[in-house]
């Protein structure tokens, strides 16, 4: 509890860095933002970095010899250095993409089409976001490969009893670092070595991992790690694909065109080395630079602090929500702050989550309701929809208290 209070004091100082959190809603309520798993809010420094680029040195990168083009190139490549440091990679292993989905598609089309053939197995889990499921379904359809799934138990935990059998004949394992629906942290330290021992390459969908957990892709030994800027204080439209250098070097381009070439003739082209081989066309320059600033902000806080703050806040929220249990509040997922990141999925009596979200909205409380882009998991679990509250660095116990008061209001409206 002491930890929670300490980290709350720091969170109060952090709140002042986020302009949107100072704006009341149209009903005059304080904005209680509990949907960071969908997208995070942005600190002033990130917003300012976008403005600075467009106001001071807007120019296309690479090849421009004039001053502002040089500055744009320097800032853009410096952002790549920052991202590489943030995840523990080499700079040449960081590819700019639009988002996690594009990163996974890049691997599915480039590496996948090159390596996966009929009869190969691709191992996923039952809780994958559609972005780490649909690209592999399409790859399996193109190649005749087979999809397998690591089971998820009733508490949202990975069941590894049959892992060796599942890995037999498996060429690729694609697995979420953290579940966006349940918050479950995947046991990557167990799965990755065993996948490698079985001869499989491992892609980690880090959309909910990189924003919330200390990350060292080399220690993790992931072959690919995909994540988005907008879930970790950065802008939309920019994300990263990390890939081991020796793997990236063997991969053909995904998209082709300008910027990704070494030499072009009328009928053939030789391609640039990674990472630029995978960055066709003018990049999302301002957003990449601002993403770099977002990692500065997170690094200054320290990712161990981020994890600890969310762990403490999740523990507090689970305690508070449990008091509504006798009135029909059901929580899904691990219900254990040690095994989950700051995501809590729940339902309240017979109130449909969309109605719940609408009533909470009248109090300025933002939660998500629906299938959270994990329709197979919802179907398997027998939930048609859930409400989801998710936490980040700017959330405090006061936000959890507001959520609980909002749920009390919903209970009154629905006569529960």
């Amino acid at each position, binding site marked *: 509890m002491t930890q929670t209070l300490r980290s709350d004091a720091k969170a109060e100082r952090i709140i002042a860095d986020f302009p949107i959190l100072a704006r009341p809603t149209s009903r005059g309520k304080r904005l209680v933002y509990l949907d960071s798993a969908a997208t995070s809010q942005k600190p002033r420094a990130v917003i300012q970095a976008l403005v600075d680029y467009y106001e001071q040195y807007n120019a296309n990168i690479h090849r421009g010899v004039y001053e502002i083009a040089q500055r744009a190139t320097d800032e853009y490549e410096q952002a790549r250095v920052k991202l590489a440091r943030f995840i523990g990679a080499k700079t040449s292993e960081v590819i700019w993409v639009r988002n996690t989905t594009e990163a996974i598609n890049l691997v599915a089309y480039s590496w996948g089409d090159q390596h996966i053939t009929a009869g190969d197995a691709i191992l996923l889990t039952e809780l994958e976001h559609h972005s780490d499921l649909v690209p592999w379904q399409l790859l399996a359809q193109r190649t005749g490969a087979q999809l397998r799934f690591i089971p998820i138990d009733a508490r949202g935990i990975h069941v590894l009893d049959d892992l060796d059998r599942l890995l037999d004949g498996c060429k690729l394992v694609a697995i979420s670092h953290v579940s966006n629906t349940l918050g479950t942290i995947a046991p990557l330290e167990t799965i990755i070595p065993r996948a490698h021992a079985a001869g499989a390459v491992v892609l980690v969908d880090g959309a909910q991992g990189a924003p919330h957990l200390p990350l060292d892709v080399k220690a993790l030994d992931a072959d690919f790690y995909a994540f988005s800027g907008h879930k970790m204080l950065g802008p939309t439209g920019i994300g990263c694909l990390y890939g081991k250098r020796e793997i990236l070097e063997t991969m053909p381009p995904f998209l082709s065109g300008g910027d990704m070439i070494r030499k072009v003739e009328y009928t053939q082209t030789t391609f640039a080395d990674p990472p630029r081989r995978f960055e066709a066309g003018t990049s999302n320059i301002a957003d990449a630079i601002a993403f770099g600033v977002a990692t500065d902000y997170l690094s200054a806080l320290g990712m161990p602090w981020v994890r600890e703050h969310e762990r403490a806040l999740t523990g507090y929220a689970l305690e508070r929500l449990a008091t509504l249990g006798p009135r029909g509040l059901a929580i899904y997922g691990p219900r254990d702050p040690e095994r989950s990141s700051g995501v809590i999925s729940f339902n309240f009596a017979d109130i449909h989550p*969309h*109605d719940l979200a*609408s009533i909470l*909205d009248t109090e300025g409380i933002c939660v998500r309701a629906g*299938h959270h882009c994990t329709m197979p998991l919802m179907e398997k679990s027998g939930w*048609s929809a859930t409400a989801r509250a998710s936490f980040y660095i700017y959330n405090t116990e006061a936000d959890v208290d507001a959520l609980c008061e909002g749920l009390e*209001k919903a209970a009154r*409206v629905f*006569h529960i």
Partner: protein
Amino acid sequence: MDDFYRDYILDHYRSPRNFGTLEQPDAAAEDVNPLCGDQIRVELKLDDGKISDVRFSGKGCAISQASTSMLLETVKGMKLTEVAQLPKDAVLENVGIGISPTRMKCAMLGLRVLKSAAIGRLADWPDEE
């Protein structure tokens, strides 16, 4: 928005009228709200081009379920050609004020499915016509 959840809405949500299925319906349609996954299926029994009986099934929020329940209470005896012309107000007059723009699709799902059953193909969203 919280004003929307009046007692009669909650009554239709918890005890929907004409809920269930028909044996050998003459027309039927179903659809989901892609935004939230709400599902509605409507089945019709016809007599001389008019609706003689109706049932709906599905799952979803209070807005989609209550809107459909209230709408279907008004359609018995209606010609299919009339059903095909029903405007969005056919729902909004029942549920009253207070539907926020983000929830409009929930309110319109039942009407869309009813009109789809009447015309034999997926109807346009009534709020987009």
